[in-house]
């Protein structure tokens, strides 16, 4: 007997103005199958899923649900059919309890008395421990995701869509999520799993559909593939791994943090507690950690957007700079690449030339008695575009018109041309296509090899393992002591990220470098 697929898509096509998001995509998801949807950012994964869940309407194509041709015109209809979705960004109210949040998100019929029992039943059956009475603001990101999963499971879905669920989880949390998903699959629930993390897909999924620039490239069994072959299908070209040529001894410390503490001025911000650190010339130091553990605050304090006291808490070139602004630090040879490209690292509605001026005017001397030196600025911007392979129609193009990868290359180029001796970058390849990501990682390595001190704050462990010499973990505003990459296992890093090992410098002052 041939099984009826749970979901079948035939020829789904969706255009946005200027972009072909999905072009004639067909796929089948069988009952109990964990089906990966794999592709780079912008490959069309999210659009396809939105068409399935009824958030977007496909321009053409057919959706067949359990053998019947169906029109899914709204998420409500999708839920009624038995499609549940866990979004990458949670929709939870911080000031409410787990139970209240779940009640708010389910149908009226379910939200009656007895829901607490159902929550407990589902969480124990699928290994999703949750206390219904806890307030969401006290929960970790992993726990918050469990709320969303439980909320979906309460509706007895037969297809569960998960959009990049592990991007915010520690390795341990990821493992426990996989156990849940496998259990669900055994119970006959189909899962559509969106990710660009190849190891996960190989480990978890039965089938993989690979998208590239809106087109279906291949459908394969990921167990028969290597992460490398998957990546090459995803990118459509062979992948170059960043390489480090030499491993000469590190130079003098370029930047020192001495017992740096900082009180976050936003509610829900994270205070930084007694962070000490040094990065030497030629060294790439990575700071791992789950989002929201103080990375943002650390970045702001390092860049001088927020000041820290006392001034000697940050020392650059033997000068105390804790109380100086970004441009004083730039003149000492520091450059910064913030996490958010549009709106922080660049002004979306300004041209590339003006965006080059934005952080370059100090070191490139682009202002003359306060007047803009337009010709010099334009030359600087064109140099960035040609030397860093930025695809754009010219220096007058608005920053917002560039793709994520191209804009990130532009921002990196803008900082690197300034010939820095300290580079501080946060999430350098977040949301960047794999080709540009490899390019950016290589340029960070090249910078270190030319003697610069490089500090990378990232949630992407794969990225850190690819480029750093030294690694430490930030957890609740405290930093673990830096370790050579060879001296620490992934498990240890994972446990530090989850706060299982408390190994901060504050608690263990002997744990020096």
């Amino acid at each position, binding site marked *: 007997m041939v099984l009826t697929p749970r979901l079948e898509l035939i020829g789904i096509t969706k255009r946005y*103005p*200027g*972009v072909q998001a999905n072009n004639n995509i067909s796929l089948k998801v069988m009952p109990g199958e964990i089906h990966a949807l794999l592709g780079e950012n912008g490959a069309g994964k999210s659009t396809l899923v939105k068409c399935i869940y009824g958030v977007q309407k496909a321009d053409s194509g057919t959706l067949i649900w359990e053998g019947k041709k169906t029109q899914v015109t709204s998420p409500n209809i999708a839920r009624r059919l038995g499609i549940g979705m866990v979004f990458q960004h949670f929709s939870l109210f911080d000031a409410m309890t787990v139970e209240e949040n779940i009640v708010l998100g389910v149908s009226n019929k379910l939200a009656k008395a007895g829901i607490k029992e159902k929550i407990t039943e589902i969480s124990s059956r699928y290994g999703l421990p949750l206390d219904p009475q806890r307030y969401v603001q006290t929960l970790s990101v992993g726990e918050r995701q469990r709320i969303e999963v439980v909320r979906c499971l309460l509706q007895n879905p037969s297809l569960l869509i998960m959009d990049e669920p592990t991007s915010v989880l520690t390795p341990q949390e990821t493992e426990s999520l996989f156990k849940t998903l496998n259990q669900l699959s055994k119970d006959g629930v189909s899962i559509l799993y969106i990710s660009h993390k190849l190891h996960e897909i190989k480990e978890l999924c039965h089938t993989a559909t690979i998208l590239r620039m809106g087109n279906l490239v291949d459908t394969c069994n990921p167990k028969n593939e290597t992460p490398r072959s998957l990546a090459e299908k995803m990118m459509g070209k062979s992948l170059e791994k960043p390489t480090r040529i030499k491993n000469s001894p590190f130079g003098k410390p370029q930047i020192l943090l001495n017992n740096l503490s900082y009180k976050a001025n936003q509610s829900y911000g994270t205070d930084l507690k007694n962070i000490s650190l040094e990065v030497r010339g030629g060294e790439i130091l990575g700071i791992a950690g789950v989002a929201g553990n103080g990375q943002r605050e650390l970045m702001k304090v390092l*860049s*001088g*957007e927020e000041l820290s006291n006392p001034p000697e808490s940050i020392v650059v070139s033997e000068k105390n700079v804790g109380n100086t*602004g*970004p*441009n004083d630090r*730039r003149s000492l040879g520091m450059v*910064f690449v*913030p996490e*958010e490209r549009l*709106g*922080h*690292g*660049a*002004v*979306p*509605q*300004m041209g590339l030339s*003006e965006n080059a*001026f*934005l*952080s370059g*005017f*100090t070191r490139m001397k682009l*202002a003359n008695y*306060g*007047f*803009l030196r*337009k010709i010099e600025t334009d030359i600087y911007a064109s140099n960035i575009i040609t030397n860093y392979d930025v695809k754009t129609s010219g220096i007058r193009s*608005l920053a*917002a*018109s560039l793709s994520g990868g191209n804009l990130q290359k532009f921002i990196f180029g803008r900082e690197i041309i300034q010939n820095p001796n300290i580079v501080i970058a946060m999430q350098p390849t977040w949301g960047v296509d794999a080709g540009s990501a490899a390019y950016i990682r290589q340029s960070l390595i090249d910078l270190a090899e030319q003697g610069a001190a490089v500090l990378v704050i990232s949630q992407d462990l794969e990225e850190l393992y690819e480029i750093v010499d030294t690694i430490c973990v930030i957890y609740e505003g405290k930093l673990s002591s830096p370790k050579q990459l060879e001296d620490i296992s992934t498990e240890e890093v994972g446990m530090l990220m989850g706060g299982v090992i408390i190994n901060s410098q504050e608690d263990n002052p002997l744990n020096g470098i």
Partner: protein
Amino acid sequence: MVFKLEPRAVSSRVMIYQSPIIAVFLTLLAGMVMFRLMGTDPLQALEAFFIEPISTMDGIAELLVKAAPLILIAIGLSIGFQANVWNIGAEGQLTIGALFGGSLALVFYELETPFLIPAMLLAGTFGGMVWAAIPALLKTRFNTNEILTSLMLTYVALLILSYLIHGPLRDPDGFNFPESRLFHNSALMPVLVEGTRLHIGILIALGVAIFAWLFIFKHMIGFQIRVVGLAPAAASFAGFKQKKLIWLALVISGGTAGLAGVIEVAGPIGQIVPVISPGYGFTAIIVAFLGRLHPIGVIFSGLLMALTYLGGDSAQITMNLPNAVTGVFQGMLLFFLLASDVLIRYRIKIR
């Protein structure tokens, strides 16, 4: 046939400049419908409103007299608006500026010196700055909303004017009318064309426009103002100090409004009266947006908006139409401008 709005992939740069023209066109069209409904010949009414007032040398002089304060205020406001600082209280800053400059004329009454007018202009500018400094202080210190504080301070300013004009500044020989003495000659703006009221105010406005253009597009501080308005986080990444820029934006816009105020009392009015401005401070908001927050654009939109003031008077005299027509035209212009601005980010698609 169905018309649909479809988002553009990239905002249309052409539309940014076309939209004011479309708005003017639609305003004229709607104006004709309005005149028709009021029972007058639309073309004749439009002629009375827009052509007649500027068909004589005297009319053109009047147009420039009215455009000067509008242009001055709108330049200041557009600098503020670019920094995302919403000074709605230019009318109050204008009033205080007029009081500062006008008081100087009264204190040095009958003093014959060429330095009095420059001193008055400076005093007026300073007065407007002081009045705008209050919302700046409140915003940077206590995070208050400058839209509310600057607007409310307008009414405070008008009451101060009313008090002074009924008391200390009242003309001692004026039979208790709430007016100051008429300024003497050296406290009046030099006239450009004999026999008209056209004074050097329009030249000052043009000079300020050119200066503002240099300041906004060629200087660091203008760059900082634009960045802080477009992307505040990028401004702090670049090391620009936001509080300083809020102060600057408010004080500049207050200064130009104050300057416009003293130009009014030392120009066409010639004394301090209970009503100094026919709402220039508010109309200038429309001028600023119609001129795309660009100093050169503001010159053109200032002239157009000045024409609506003259047209209202003219339509009242020749066609017996109510003076409120001016307000209706100004309102329609802003309304259609905001509507046409949708086309910057969307296009119309016909199915």
